[in-house]
């Protein structure tokens, strides 16, 4: 060993770093990266890693299925903005992560997935529990790598965290063969990360910002169209200041709910397929659309050719490949929404736009979200309104995928970022329960409510057991319509009411909850809804309420696929209910 002087006890040359196994390096580097919580499941090739986790200062949550663990890491990341960490064994373990990783990719969630792999000398031989994990996950990760030499392990983990959380965040996977976890090497000093192919554009072109500001200042009928990127960028405060100063109406995508306070008059709530009529009309009539951290998803735009036909488009996004991908953009600004919104705010001027706001107010009063409040049955929207009344902006709301998800987006008014957690891009049924668990792990004192569908809940309900084991007091409200409701709605509207295979026999969810060790409540009378919610909220244990709701309720309004945003069905139903 070479003799270099040690200053302040810190090793100065690599030779002075202690020898460590790959597994030790992994755990130590996770801690170095600030990881204090992680999720994962065991298996042969990750045993060296789990051995080092035995006494590591990391809060470790074991799910009942790796997919659940992955959604937990996802929910944890969305609730906090921190990187969610998941670990799984090779082959089946890694394959069980696929849905969770793809889900995180679509919604730009920062995540690091560590998978075990068979010994390097066995790779490619169809060894026991071998799967080409990097090959399988390449299109659904922001980046992935297999580490075949223990010397590369520590830099790889540091790179993974850096890539996962910077720019447009996303999941990064590192595949670690078991012999690499067992091999020894010296630690690598913490130096700057060198990724010549990874360039971040943070600040946005100042001339583009000036042009954008001038265009906004001139506009008579602007709409601010906000996407999940604003939440990712922690730019809600900047968004509020900007929108108030410029006096702009604000609409949000599903992913952005909470980025702007929906109780404010200028909020147009959600736009798109099941968005508000007032948001969709405003977008279609606007002369300027200011998109921030949004990606013009087909569920948002409807028919592209006739989307916002009279509007100039400003698009602020950190991902250059989002710009002009679906819609031609007139003024692109590439960079971090937080920074760019702050810069824009300096350049813009207040403008009253009275005619425009009058028109919007008219739409808002004519077409609010509606349902039959007089019905004696439990309407799913009623349940959500009651949950909202009882919790206001105090809860983290998580959902499954389907009608209940859309009603939650419509009827639970979000006021703060990171308080609405839902699977947007991939639309993954079964996301709700494990994501709620992840959010509760991240925020132990928060009230976390999963508003779920019966079919969605069926997909991952085994994780209720995880909530019980770790004493996570999550609340689950199942809007039980006995259908894959969203599918049934499409079958009703587009397949002549032929409800082919869209209803399943459900278990007694309350009894299942009790069997898992949680509290179970069933509600089948409208009069009992409020009491059940109160009881649920008072409960210190995980608690599930099975609301037997109106079975064939539909989500309105609806822009059928292929139609323009203003061609909404269901508005006449709205009017007949007034």
């Amino acid at each position, binding site marked *: 060993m070479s003799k270099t002087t040690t200053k302040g006890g810190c090793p100065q040359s690599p030779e002075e770093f202690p020898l460590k196994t790959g597994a030790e390096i992994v755990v130590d580097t996770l801690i170095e990266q600030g990881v204090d919580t992680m999720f994962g499941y065991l298996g042969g090739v990750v045993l060296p890693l789990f051995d080092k986790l035995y006494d590591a200062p990391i809060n470790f949550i074991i799910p009942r299925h790796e997919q659940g663990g992955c959604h937990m890491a996802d929910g944890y990341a969305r609730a906090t903005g921190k990187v969610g960490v998941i670990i799984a064994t090779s082959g089946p373990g890694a394959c069980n992560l696929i849905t969770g990783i793809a889900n995180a990719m679509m919604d730009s969630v920062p995540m690091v997935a560590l998978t075990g792999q068979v010994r390097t000398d066995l790779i490619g031989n169809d060894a026991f529990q071998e799967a080409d994990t990097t*090959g399988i996950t*390449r299109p659904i990760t922001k980046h992935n790598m*297999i580490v075949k030499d223990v010397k590369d392990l520590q830099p790889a983990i540091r790179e993974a965290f850096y*890539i996962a959380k910077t720019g447009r965040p996303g999941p990064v996977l590192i595949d670690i063969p078991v012999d690499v976890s067992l091999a020894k090497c010296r630690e690598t000093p913490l130096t700057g990360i060198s990724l010549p*192919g990874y360039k971040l554009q943070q600040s946005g072109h100042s001339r583009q910002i000036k042009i954008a500001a001038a265009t906004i200042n001139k506009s008579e009928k602007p709409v601010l169209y906000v996407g999940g990127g604003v939440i990712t960028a922690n730019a809600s405060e900047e968004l509020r200041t900007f929108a108030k100063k410029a006096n702009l109406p604000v609409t949000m995508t599903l992913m952005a709910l909470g980025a702007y306070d929906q109780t404010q008059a200028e909020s147009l709530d959600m736009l798109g397929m099941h968005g508000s009529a007032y948001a969709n009309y405003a977008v279609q009539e606007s002369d300027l659309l200011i998109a921030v951290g949004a990606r013009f998803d087909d569920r948002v735009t409807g028919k592209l050719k006739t989307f916002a036909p009279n509007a100039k488009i400003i698009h602020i996004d950190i991902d250059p490949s989002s710009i002009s991908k679906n819609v031609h953009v007139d003024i692109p600004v590439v960079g971090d929404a937080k920074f760019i919104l702050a810069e824009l705010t300096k350049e813009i001027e207040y403008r009253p736009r009275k005619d425009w706001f009058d028109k919007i107010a008219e739409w808002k009063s004519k077409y609010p979200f509606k349902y039959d409040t007089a019905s004696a049955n439990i309407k799913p929207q009623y349940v959500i309104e009651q949950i909202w009344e009882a919790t206001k902006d105090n809860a983290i709301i998580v959902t499954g995928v389907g009608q209940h998800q859309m009603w939650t987006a419509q009827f639970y008014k979000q006021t703060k970022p990171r308080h609405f957690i839902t699977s947007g891009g991939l639309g993954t049924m079964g996301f709700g329960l494990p994501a709620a668990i992840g959010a509760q792990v991240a925020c132990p004192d928060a009230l976390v409510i999963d508003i779920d569908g019966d079919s969605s809940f069926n997909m991952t309900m085994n994780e209720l057991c995880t909530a019980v084991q770790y004493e996570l007091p999550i609340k689950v409200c199942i809007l039980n319509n006995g259908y894959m409701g969203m599918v049934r709605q499409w079958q009703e509207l587009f397949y002549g009411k032929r409800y082919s295979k869209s209803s399943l026999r459900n278990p007694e969810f309350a009894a299942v909850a009790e069997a898992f060790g949680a509290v179970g409540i069933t509600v089948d009378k409208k009069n009992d809804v409020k009491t059940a919610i109160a009881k649920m909220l008072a409960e210190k244990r995980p608690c599930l309420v099975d609301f037997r709701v109106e079975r064939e309720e539909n989500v309105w309004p609806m822009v059928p696929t292929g139609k323009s945003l203003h061609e909404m069905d269901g508005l006449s139903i709205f009017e007949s209910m007034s």
Partner: protein
Amino acid sequence: MKHIISALVQNKPGVLAHVAGMFAARAFNIDSLAVGRTDDPALSRMTIVVLGDDKVVEQVRKQLAKIIDVVKIQDFSGAEVVARDLMLLCVHTPPEKRPEVLALIEMFKAKVVDIGQKTIMVEATGPEEKIEALIEACKPYGIKNMARTGTVAMAKFSKNAPADNQ
């Protein structure tokens, strides 16, 4: 329309699969793809000929740039470039046709690299149109075998032309 895109990539396993997979997943149309080493052992160069309009090519460029192991991208659309293909072509040539075929090869400034009893193997490099023309001219004799590298390209020297090593 054809566009030539040149990408400098990390010389790591999986990068070719990543690039090829991205093209397939996003339904981009590749006409040819050539990969080779560069003077820097850490880097390889991919030359990709893409079919599509300007909008498609812009997306191709951006999606390539998003791949972490892709270090640098040049879009040669509209630039002054030298683009070359290399082809080996085996032409059916019975002895009585030999003078004719040899004259043809000579005319195209191609090279004879192997002569069999009834075949001639030709090596030709040049712009794609020249290669295509040679193929057409040889067709009547019968093409036994053909192998092409796909296009490689480089921008012509000008003050503004990008270089990898500044």
